[in-house]
């Protein structure tokens, strides 16, 4: 356990009005991890991050940072630093003063401040703007200032609150790569809060998905995408078709069930289930064919194309398979001509390998 840099034990944050922002959360974050807290707005992820930083305090539970319970330690005495959503770069200081601020107020020697500030600015490639005031800088540059200002303190944990949300789409991609690179170079644990699944999936080594103040699942990005444990996680991460199913029986690692509109199928599931479940299948795992597909064990059904949306590399298709059930299907546009090869109103077969489907019991 010594390599756990942050260890959160049964933390809750309840407000006097009866609202619970964070509800009995426990999680461990290892040294040198790039950890993401992901969830819709109001799920408690920011509150959790603020409690790690000390800007908020839990009403119950422990927050161990570097092996010490710091749940009630003021932020200035914690080995954590934060990059704020609004960056909070002090407008009355130059870039250099901003970056050096955290060292100055903790009594670091002037020459040392100068050296480390220069180093940090070098790292975020802002050395040429050291004398600028923040109001003469772009959003992206200000964010780098905020990053340098936090990293110059050499924290054990760097906290990032929606760091990319205020940037435009192009800058965001660049910054995403840069954050990953930075994390690898400095070797500091990063904890990022985001509501954007793409951000979390592409940057983090592990993700905690939160909803209504509680953790739904903690897993690596690919596990989260391919092995979501709950309906919420499956729905929140990427697109998914969720189909109600009645459980008929269970033997070995397989559950046989009757899925609405799809008929009987056998899906792998280790846990014991009740009599109701949900079948989850990603749009790219569904296939379309004009003639009846052949192959043992394929789940197939007839449907009518309701909508085709062309996205260049892929086409997103909605097919009506009866019983008021629509399925989303993503097809690769592999040839220059023809696109998805289907059009609205066309009768088609929709099929998939049951091994690509997932049975969700929660």
């Amino acid at each position: 356990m010594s390599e756990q840099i942050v260890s959160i034990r049964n933390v809750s944050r309840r407000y006097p009005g009866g609202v619970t922002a964070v509800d009995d959360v426990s999680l461990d974050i290892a040294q040198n991890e790039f950890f993401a807290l992901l969830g819709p707005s109001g799920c408690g992820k920011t509150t959790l991050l603020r409690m790690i930083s000390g800007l908020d305090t839990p009403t119950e539970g422990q927050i161990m940072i570097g092996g010490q319970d710091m749940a009630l330690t003021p932020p200035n005495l914690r080995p954590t630093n934060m990059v704020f959503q609004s960056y909070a770069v002090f407008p009355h200081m130059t870039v250099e003063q901003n970056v050096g601020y955290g060292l100055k107020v903790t009594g670091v020697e002037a020459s040392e401040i100068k050296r480390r500030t220069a180093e940090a600015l070098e790292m975020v490639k802002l050395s040429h703007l050291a004398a600028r005031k923040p109001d003469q800088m772009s959003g992206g540059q200000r964010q780098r200032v905020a990053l340098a200002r936090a990293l110059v303190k050499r924290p054990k944990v760097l906290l990032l609150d929606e760091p990319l949300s205020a940037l435009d789409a192009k800058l965001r991609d660049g910054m995403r790569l840069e954050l990953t690179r930075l994390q690898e170079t400095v070797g500091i644990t990063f904890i990022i809060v985001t509501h954007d699944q793409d951000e979390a999936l592409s940057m983090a080594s592990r993700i905690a998905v939160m909803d209504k103040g509680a953790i739904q699942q903690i897993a690596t990005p690919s596990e989260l995408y391919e092995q979501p444990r709950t309906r919420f996680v499956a729905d929140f991460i990427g697109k998914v078709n969720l189909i109600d199913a009645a459980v008929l029986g269970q033997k070995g690692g397989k559950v046989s069930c009757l899925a609405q509109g799809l008929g009987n199928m056998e899906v792998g599931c280790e846990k014991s289930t009740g009599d109701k479940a949900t079948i989850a299948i990603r749009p790219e795992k569904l296939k379309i064919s004009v003639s009846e597909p052949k192959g043992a064990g394929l789940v197939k059904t007839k449907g009518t194309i309701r909508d085709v949306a062309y996205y260049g590399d892929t086409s997103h298709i909605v097919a009506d398979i009866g019983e008021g059930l629509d399925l989303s299907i993503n097809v690769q546009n592999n040839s220059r001509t023809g696109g998805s090869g289907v059009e609205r109103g066309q009768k088609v077969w929709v099929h998939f390998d049951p091994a690509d489907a997932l049975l969700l019991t929660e």
Partner: protein
Amino acid sequence: MDNWKDYKKVFWILAAPGTFWLLLFFVIPLAFLFIMSFGGKAIVNGEVSITDYAYFTGFENYLRSVEPLYLQIMWKSIWISALATILCLVTAYPIAFGICFAPARWKPILLLLVVLPFWINLLIRTYALIAVFRTQGYVNLTLSVVGLGPYEMLYNDFAVIFGLVYVYMPFMVLPLYATIERLDKSFLEASLDLGATQFTTFKNVTIPLTMPGIITGVILVFIPCLGSFLTPALLGGANAIMIGNVIERQFKAANDWPFGAAISFMLMFATFAALMIRAFVAKRSAGVDV
């Protein structure tokens, strides 16, 4: 916005009454005052007249106004006003700060309670202070219970300063409240997060970032304090007179209008100087206005 030339008639109808009123009953009276400030008592038949004035007798009124006696009063007015302004600032800042961080439903009530006295007649508020602080007032009455006093708390500089603080406090709270409320709280959080204590955060971040509000508040309090007449007249003793009282004396008891006019202009110059300092500082800190 339309160009005035396109609607000349409407423009003139709207502009005329206000402009006329201000010219006739504000600018012309001030011009009278200005001319009077260079005047003097007329010499009629070799005697100094009581009722007539000579138009221009040079700068002697202004020269008189910078004689040590009056310079001293001017100086005293400035430091009493400055002290009252500083006291206002140090009491109003925590109040404004506290209101900004109070629960949302308390904010309007707390703010209203600070502003309400401002709407109550200045004279009545000053009178209320007299009732509290006079020798047979409630403060001395309370003190006498524990066997102290009675103390003479009125009719001195302390009473004037206290009165000014009491009377002009809302002027300080409002601009401070407005700037602190607009201040992005994540600046304070960032400072704490970077290792600053509450005190260093206050000194290095909160104060500089709320400077525009501080300056506005200081000017809003300092100017009326400098020109105050009622508070020193009622709460001050013989020694606690300020520039306003000197002006009043020239126009009422002493009947030396030209000199009173000259001092009035000295007061106006001081006021405009304060306003200009404010404009200057505001320009310099324009980048800081968040």
